[in-house]
């Protein structure tokens, strides 16, 4: 553009040049605004399309069941009601399932953060025999899909008489290779001299972790917490195998008790689904920023 203006400057006077410049700037501004508008509209359509299942679920959850059965397109309930939620709560012990899921997901999240940060600390700051082999071994676990071990795990815990307890839902998930990798990636950015000088000042390892590493890696811990909590909340295959009674079922398994296609229960079932989606979505929305910052500042770039 500059060269055009330069060339033009030789032939035309400064007044014309000013006008020309203004015109071009106006055009560019208009174009930028138009493209922003188009972008926003496009986004609106795509987002509506992708969120359709969720919006539809919320709408059905508030819809009285007699409204559901028409051949007309009924996107929004004309007389919204909380009845479906109340019925769902009455039909199955949903409160108990939600408590169970919070207990299980909470302990798994805490346990993973502790075990992964301890292991990552040892792998990044301490020297010991077999360190590389052990680290490779930990990373190799990422190659083994959970489904390849689930039968043996089931047989093990059933022979331990652990079926239908909290520990069987929690203990197998108390660590993760991804977590260790994530924390180590973060710890790598700290100079080893930080650790050495803390040691010289008489700081014990545990205190170093507690009062220096953890405060400095809050974003990694936040990301890990959000990710782990959501995954634990959404766990399906393992709880399906190892829980049998209403007392121990987690939400994802318990909600299956509402699953039937008879007319009365469809809106009730969707109301139940909406209730159990709310916690994981809330955690996600609250923690999204942390999650993105934590996962992508350390792990992917490295």
């Amino acid at each position, binding site marked *: 553009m500059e060269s055009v203006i330069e060339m033009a400057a030789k032939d035309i006077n400064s007044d014309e040049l000013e006008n020309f410049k203004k015109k071009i700037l106006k055009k560019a501004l208009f174009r930028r605004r138009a493209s922003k508008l188009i*972008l926003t509209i496009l986004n609106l359509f795509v987002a509506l399309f*992708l969120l359709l299942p969720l919006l539809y679920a919320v709408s059905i959850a508030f819809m009285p069941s007699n409204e559901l059965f028409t051949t007309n397109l009924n996107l929004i309930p004309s007389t919204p009601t909380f009845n479906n939620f109340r019925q769902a709560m009455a039909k199955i012990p949903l409160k108990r399932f939600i408590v169970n899921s919070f207990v299980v997901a909470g302990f798994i999240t805490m346990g993973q953060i502790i075990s992964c940060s301890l292991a990552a600390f040892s792998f990044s700051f301490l020297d010991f025999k077999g360190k590389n082999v052990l680290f490779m071994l930990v990373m190799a676990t990422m190659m*083994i899909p959970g489904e390849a*071990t689930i039968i043996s795990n089931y047989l093990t815990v*059933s022979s331990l008489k652990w079926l239908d307890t909290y520990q069987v839902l929690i203990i197998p998930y*108390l660590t993760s290779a991804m977590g260790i990798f994530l924390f180590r990636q973060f710890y790598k950015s700290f100079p080893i001299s930080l650790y050495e000088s803390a040691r010289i000042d008489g700081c014990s390892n545990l205190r170093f972790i507690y009062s220096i590493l953890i405060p400095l890696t809050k974003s990694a811990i936040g990301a890990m917490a959000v990710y782990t909590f959501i995954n634990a909340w*959404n766990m399906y295959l393992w709880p399906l195998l190892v829980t049998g009674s209403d007392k121990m079922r987690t939400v994802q398994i318990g909600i299956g008790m509402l*699953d039937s296609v008879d007319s009365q229960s469809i809106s009730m079932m969707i109301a139940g689904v909406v209730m159990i989606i709310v916690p*994981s979505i809330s955690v996600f929305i609250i923690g999204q920023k942390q999650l993105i910052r934590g996962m992508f500042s350390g792990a992917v*770039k490295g």
Partner: protein
Amino acid sequence: MKLKNVSRYLSPYVYIVPAIAVFVLFLFFPFIKTIYLSLFKTNKMGQAKLFVGGGNYSDLFSSASFFNSLFVTAIFVLIVVSVSMLLGLITAILCNQSFPGIRIFSTAYALPMAIASSSAAMIFKIMLHPTIGIINKLLGLHTNWISDPRYALVCVALLSAWLNSGINFLYFSAGLSNIDNTLYERASVDGANSAQKFFRLTLPGLSPIMFYTLVVNIIQAFQAFGQVKVLTMGGPGESTNLIVYSIYRDAFFNYRFGSAAAQSVILFMVIMILTLCMFHLEKKGVHY
């Protein structure tokens, strides 16, 4: 003094013990046990009773049902990976430039990652309902999506693609933000159009993260279970009998733990070989 040395020598191990113990007990040991079980016929309690060597494997490889399961899984993985990566890429590009409301939209695009496969499947079940489902109403059809073997697999695959699109959006967004913006400006000055910019700048710039996303997506697609269990139960016929569902059914309905273990080992091998192949290709093909 000596005690202190010992503790100093041991302490690095103490910090990794919690993690390693869980890995050994619930990953390495059961993995080896699965391989061991795959060589035996078991009783109903899952105890190895009769050594059959490769018997379970040769049974599987002469079973039409198992080949069907592999075939169905392959198609499923193909659909899920391509659709969910495409969705992730489109949404990430849509959210790459700033515009009013970008925060809300990017939350919306990432949201499916917070939703459980089983919950999503229950919602899709109603959406695909032949009489009251919104899909038939919007399209003006009366198709029975889930009980038609032609459509059931596609439905399960699209559901899974939707679930995975959320995290793909995050991966691709991170990839896009790593591309230097001045590259685009310079390309514009040189008169490149948007298609050229997309194919010459965006896609090559995304190739490292694209590769990583591809690997993660393939591994994840192979492990789909909840959506099959809730939506189709492997049916109609065996048209959605994905490998993990087949393992589940063999072990916990037919009590053929040996055969199920053999299928688990095959699943592991398939995933490992695919991953290794992709890493091998990556060394050749992806430009950083």
